[in-house]
């Protein structure tokens, strides 16, 4: 069987490949349906523009996955340090010269091709790589050495600190994943609790003093407003005092029902802001109903299940941490997107990995998946080798 896959040069866990394929099909369907409004806004009604763009991007993603899964994971470990430095450098660059979108300096325009690049996506990948590397490096039989904790905390502090002001949710999400990873990496519980407490405290303090901070102080005001809105005591956005985006999303979710309106039949895409990214899950529920909505959730859960089975077969710590960290990151992001769409948590702009439109997220999600598959490939080859030796 392994032979067969290697003939097609697609290696690693078949199920993960299938999950990737299914997700990208859903992505094409929903992006095509939900970009109508945007197409009228910026492309004069050429509705196939974004479909083709997404198709090309997805094909690019397959290529990236293919390349990254061919690269032995050992290399990733050795690139971790460098990757982190590059990521931090780019984050700082974005803060200085970045394109200001929604009052957030989160983007860098790459000269020449006019592609908006979001360095925080790179930073996410790099940080997980780095944490995995450090954790495995300082792993002893009983626990992880203290030194590892401080190194990791320093890295998280710098990266999340930079992202924090412009992109609260990404920063919090990343911090959370890293904490989980450290927990799995057997860092002593007291440190973790301390870090968690300190982080939470800092956030709460910032939110409380937000009204007294100058406007230049990032997006802390927006974060505060969204949280207050969620709690129902915030600044009113619509006529009858409810939050517009949330209302529209709820309408989408409800009107989809169990079987959905069918692909391309969404009505709410015309009213929801960013129906092709932040609120794509609401559109999926509207068009594809429970089958699509819960199906896609199942796909992500299946992804971490498969990741878990890869981890179990790992005989080294770095690939295990890497696979867990990356898969958790993808799934946590997916759940965040879904939770926003169904109004479980305050509004925040997390794309649905591999489904939402948006180049940077797609590229780095692909890279992450490629890395998971790379580990899977090595594990399989190792297994086959073991069998051969038997």
């Amino acid at each position, binding site marked *: 069987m392994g032979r067969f896959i290697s003939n097609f040069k697609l290696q690693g866990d078949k199920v993960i490949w299938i999950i990737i394929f299914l997700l990208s099909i859903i992505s094409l369907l929903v992006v095509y349906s939900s970009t109508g409004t945007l*197409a*009228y806004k910026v492309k004069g009604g050429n509705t196939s523009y974004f479909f083709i763009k997404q198709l090309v991007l997805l094909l690019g993603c397959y290529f990236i996955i293919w390349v990254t899964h061919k690269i032995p994971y050992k290399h990733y470990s050795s690139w971790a340090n460098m990757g982190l430095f590059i990521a931090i450098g780019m984050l700082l660059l974005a803060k200085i010269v970045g394109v200001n979108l929604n009052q957030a300096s989160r983007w860098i325009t790459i000269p020449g091709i006019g592609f908006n690049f979001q360095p925080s996506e790179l930073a996410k990948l790099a940080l997980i790589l780095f944490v995995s590397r450090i954790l495995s490096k300082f792993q002893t039989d009983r626990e992880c050495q203290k030194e590892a904790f401080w190194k990791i905390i320093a890295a998280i502090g710098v990266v999340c600190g930079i992202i924090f002001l412009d992109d609260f949710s990404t920063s919090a999400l990343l911090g959370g994943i890293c904490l989980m990873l450290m927990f799995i990496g057997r860092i002593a519980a007291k440190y973790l609790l301390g870090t968690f407490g300190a982080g939470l405290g800092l956030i709460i303090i910032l939110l409380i003093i937000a009204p007294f901070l100058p406007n230049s102080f990032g997006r802390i005001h927006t974060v505060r407003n969204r949280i207050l809105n969620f709690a129902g005591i915030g600044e009113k956005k619509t006529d009858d005092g409810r939050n517009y985006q949330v209302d529209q999303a709820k309408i989408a979710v409800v009107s989809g029902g169990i079987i959905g309106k069918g692909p391309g039949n969404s009505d709410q895409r015309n009213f929801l802001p960013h129906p092709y990214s932040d609120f794509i899950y609401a559109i999926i529920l509207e068009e594809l109903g429970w089958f699509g909505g819960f199906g896609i959730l199942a796909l992500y859960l299946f992804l971490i299940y498969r990741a878990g089975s890869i981890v179990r077969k790992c005989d080294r710590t770095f690939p295990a941490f890497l696979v867990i960290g990356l898969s958790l990151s993808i799934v946590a992001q997916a759940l965040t997107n879904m939770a926003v769409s169904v109004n479980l948590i305050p509004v925040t702009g997390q794309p649905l990995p591999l489904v939402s439109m948006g180049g940077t997220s797609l590229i780095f999600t692909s890279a992450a998946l490629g890395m998971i598959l790379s580990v899977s490939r090595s594990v399989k080859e190792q297994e086959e080798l073991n069998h051969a030796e038997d």
Partner: protein
Amino acid sequence: MWRVGVCYTLIVLLAFCVVSRVVYLQVFEGDDWRGRAQSISKKDITVYANRGDICAADGRLLASSIPYYELRMDFQAMGLTNDIFKKNVDSLAICLSRFFGDKSSSAYRRQLWDAKFHSTRNRYVLINQRKVNYNELKQIKTFPLFRLSSNKGGLICLQESKRVQPHINLASRTIGYLNKGNGNELIGKVGLEGLFENELKGIDGISMMQKMSGKWLPVNQADPKDGNDIITTIDVNFQDVAQSALLQQLQAYHADHGSAILMEVETGAIKAIANLGLDSETNKYEEIYNYAIGEATEPGSTFKLASIMALLEDGYVQPTDSIDTGNGIHRFYKDKMRDSHVGGYGMISVQEAFEKSSNVGISKLVNQHYKDKPRDFINRLSAFRLNKTLDLDIKGEGRPKIKYPGEEGWSGISLPWMSIGYEVQQTPLQTLCFYNAIANNGKMMKPIFVHEIKYHGKVLKHFDEEVLKNSLCSRETLRKVKSMLEGVVLRGTATNLRNSSYSIAGKTGTAQIADKNKGYGHKVYQASFAGYFPADAPKYSCVVVINSPDKKKGFYGNQVAGPVFKTIADKVYAMTYAMHPPKQDEQICEIKVPISLNGNKDDLDIVFKELNVSIDDREVYGDWVLTSRQDSIIKYKNRIINNHLVPNVKGMGIQDALYILENAGLKVKINGFGSVKKQSLNPGSNFRSGDLIYIELS
């Protein structure tokens, strides 16, 4: 590995939360949100129908609607990106400043900029208070940004229509006007506009719009149906005559108000109805109330016709009988009845008593014959249909009042006073109807105001004349009272109306009535004259009532109301009989192609198509054309209509001319009928908006 398990459990828990949240929303909040979904993704837009025209009997326009547009801008239009906005805002501000001329371009720029970037209410922002007409709108649609589609440029124009009466103030009360209804729509409330609201308003269309791909697209449209046109019985020339004659007299006698109605004897068609009242603010006479229909007052001596008819019908008197009027004063209980002629007429005939309008004579006769059976007298009046309204379709008809013995207010002197037109009430139109019935050989016609209802030239409904009462009295009585009514003009109180070319029959009325503004204590005079002409073969009946003339200048019916009657009768007689045009039927048959008017190309196309006439429109590219006849086809040539210069409307029909001139911003006054022969401002000359232009039609 248990640590991984903890993390996975957390994730699965979160996933479970998402699923249950979806189920919760759908099951428990489902109905609420589904209802809201309905309300936002679809909307119905009303497409207003064009209101029908109100026309005179000959088809000339009395009231018509002309479209105007309110300009608003949607700064959140889907395609109006910041880039597009910034690129165009300066030039747009310059254009707007130049167009409206009320603010500098920098002020406009600031207004637009603030609306776009600093305002929370940046949808449907009003650009300028002023509403623009169709041609101006065309110009505005060439401005930067506005020349883009509304989705990109954000321009929103809301159409409204303005009701205009081209013959300014001609029967405007009877034509009526529009008021704002419950919604924001205009509804005909008064006069014919109100009466035929349902016919005129048409049926609004509904365009169901659905938001699809960022655009509101019509998914289902019910087209509007234009309102029907109302062809009234009003003759513009007669109306003009009646109105100016009334005005002149009101001014001469400083009267408070007055009305004059002209009715066609045979049909009851109202050919003219003028109502003028002194507007205390402007000190001018204007159509402020429909007195002719709405105001019931004590008619005075014009009511003596009814009394004498009752006496004749019951056979109590003959015109030749004598009656002693004594010294002009007669006492009924404590109250003195006086004749206006001081000293009295002594012993006179019944005929004379009527012609000279002797109060003593008539009241004595009535009192003498009906004192013991007053019910008989009242029953007679009822038989003359004086106690009932005319069942007018127009709202607000004043109720006539005829007391019945035993009713509240009935007293011993009621009978004599009623006999001379006091303690009873009639509206001018009711009085006219009664006199018209005499002229019409006893047949009482219902007044009609509308001939036909048309839709795009096709007759939908024709209003036939209606008889209220077939015969008021015997032929014998009729012959006698006609002779008396003629005698009023020949020998009686209205000799000033006598003329050599035709005869008038009628009755003067001079009443002292309570001033409605100042209460019963304060009495004012009301002069009236009701009658018909020519007396030998009545064609028209007419009533003139003038309220509260200046006592020092005069107050008698013959003196104040009579001349108005005579002026109207003279001119109407002249126009009806002397100027009757020779028939031209045979000539017309020889012309194969109709001589056409100039005008709107689309309209003419329809006309010529209907007539099966070939058209040569090869040279034409605009909306407005000149036509000329070449052998058997009609050739179109362009007529250039320039917005800034006075348009040339010569040769056009009134509707087209009015449309073009009003849209150009001119105020139009019209004289004559037919097609435009002369215009007071030369074509191609400069003008300012609101300038007055006279056009002469023939």
